[in-house]
């Protein structure tokens, strides 16, 4: 997207030279520029995705770098994701207890917590947390490599930078997001149960039995594995923003910010589509 649209979404003041003049013709130019920028951005993203796909399926494969990225994306995000999941579990527990009590439906608490955490909050919170941590990290790292010609040096050494840098990071995000979501869900359920048990006696066994009563795999697996799509979005946007950076330190900062903002935005929009898709395909 043109930088004006992005900075508007991200809430960042544009650089001074981008300040628009105030006139009808400049307004028309701005709108035309926005539209052109919108299509240019998506077109470039499509070309980038195609280059990454081709690089992913043709040897030689970068296994060592992929394993390193699995650690970077997965292991190092785990503490933050677990903490976020735990906090969400407590919040839902407190809110659900209050709401259900008002309607005389306290017995529904375990199922409410389980379904809310696993189907809704666990995936989206994990996605947003990882988008912030990993998206910014990848965007800044690749942007820094771009402005210091390190990516050019990789290409000049007859190594495909799309394969070495982008494909590995995107694959790592796709593979790790569902696992991190499971971790977030587990922490959320545990802390949610604990918050409830502090107020009313409820054994963990009772909580699990009641919460998962009548549940099928269709209720929980699709919402968990949809996060693989989140991983694709986070990795793709971050790598794309990083590898097309220009403009020195300012460009690196912009790439990091755009990676997080656009990654989070597209993740939420994708969730709307995915939720509907899951409800239709897995009724």
């Amino acid at each position, binding site marked *: 997207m043109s930088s004006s649209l992005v900075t508007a979404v991200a809430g960042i003041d544009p650089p001074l030279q981008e300040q628009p003049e105030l006139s009808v013709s400049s307004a028309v130019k701005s709108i035309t520029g926005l539209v052109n920028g919108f299509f240019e951005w998506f077109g470039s993203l499509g070309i980038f995705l195609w*280059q990454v796909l*081709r690089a992913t399926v*043709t040897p*030689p494969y970068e296994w060592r770098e992929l394993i390193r990225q699995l650690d970077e994306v997965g292991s190092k995000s785990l503490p933050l994701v677990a903490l976020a999941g735990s906090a969400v579990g407590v919040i839902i527990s407190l809110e659900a207890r209050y709401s259900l009590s008002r309607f005389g439906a306290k017995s529904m608490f375990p199922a409410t917590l389980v379904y809310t955490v696993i189907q809704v909050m666990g995936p989206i919170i994990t996605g947003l947390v990882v988008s912030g941590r990993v998206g910014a990290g990848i965007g800044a790292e690749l942007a*820094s*490599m771009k402005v*210091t*010609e*390190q990516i*050019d*040096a*990789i*290409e*000049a*050494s*007859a*190594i*495909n930078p*799309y394969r070495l840098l982008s494909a590995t990071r995107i694959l790592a995000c796709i593979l790790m997001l569902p696992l991190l979501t499971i971790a977030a869900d587990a922490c959320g359920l545990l802390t949610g149960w604990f918050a409830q048990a502090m107020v009313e006696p409820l054994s963990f066994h009772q909580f699990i039995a009641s919460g998962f009563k009548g549940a099928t795999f269709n209720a929980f697996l699709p919402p968990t594995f949809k996060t693989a799509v989140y991983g694709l979005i986070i990795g793709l946007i971050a790598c794309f923003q990083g590898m097309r950076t220009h403009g020195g330190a300012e460009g690196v900062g912009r790439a990091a910010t755009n990676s997080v903002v656009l990654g989070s935005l597209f993740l939420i929009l994708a969730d709307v589509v995915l939720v509907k898709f899951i409800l239709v395909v897995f009724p």
Partner: protein
Amino acid sequence: MKQGKVKKDGSAPFVAVENLRKSFGSHTVLNGISLSVGRGETLAVLGRSGTGKSVLLRLIIGLEKPDSGSICIHGRNIAGLALDQMGEIRKKMGFLFQHAALYDSLTVAENVAFPLVHHRAEMSRSERTNRVRELLAEVGMEGDLDKMPSDISGGMQKRVGLARALALEPEILLLDEPTAGLDPISSGEIDDLILKLQRERRMASIVVTHDLHSARTIANRLALLDQGNVVIKGKYEDLDQSKIEFVKEFLKLS
């Protein structure tokens, strides 16, 4: 396929550029230049800042695509080749970037080993380690294997960049401003290093520089660019005897 012109000794040039044009938007950087370099030769490309010298090297290594013209490497025109077709060509070339472009998350030794890890998979770890030590010893950096790029000076980074560029035994060496930003003593050391490597390896080299003294030291031939055109090319004596105003001005002020 367009072939490079055959030289007087009957050999084809390793690198032959013909009628090369490149523009960025409305700004024409290269306006139909033609150059060639053979085995064991060093061509210095001189000119003012912003005259397209670095762009020429980026076109030869394939980091940019020309608007028109040909770039022949061993007689093969690479001007229209895609990224995955350039691999075998690039393995024959070594490129030293202006600021060395070392991978800042890797040590000095890991930087030099990088091309070997990816392209010499048949080498054992110990063979690779020995090869890295040899390369760093050639450039006088054998005592700094475990240092990070941020821990060494600009001149030392260039030496490591040069060692990395030589890792795959290239036939063609491209050097972008090898002495830029260095003090006179360090510049002299880099020049001596390039001369030594050239004597030993007999690569076809193209050095982009605005340092006339360095160019005279290391190059067999020089080419002077101005506004996207080759104003003059030949030995230093040809430039010195030229009546062209720009050439006289450039030599006087260098």
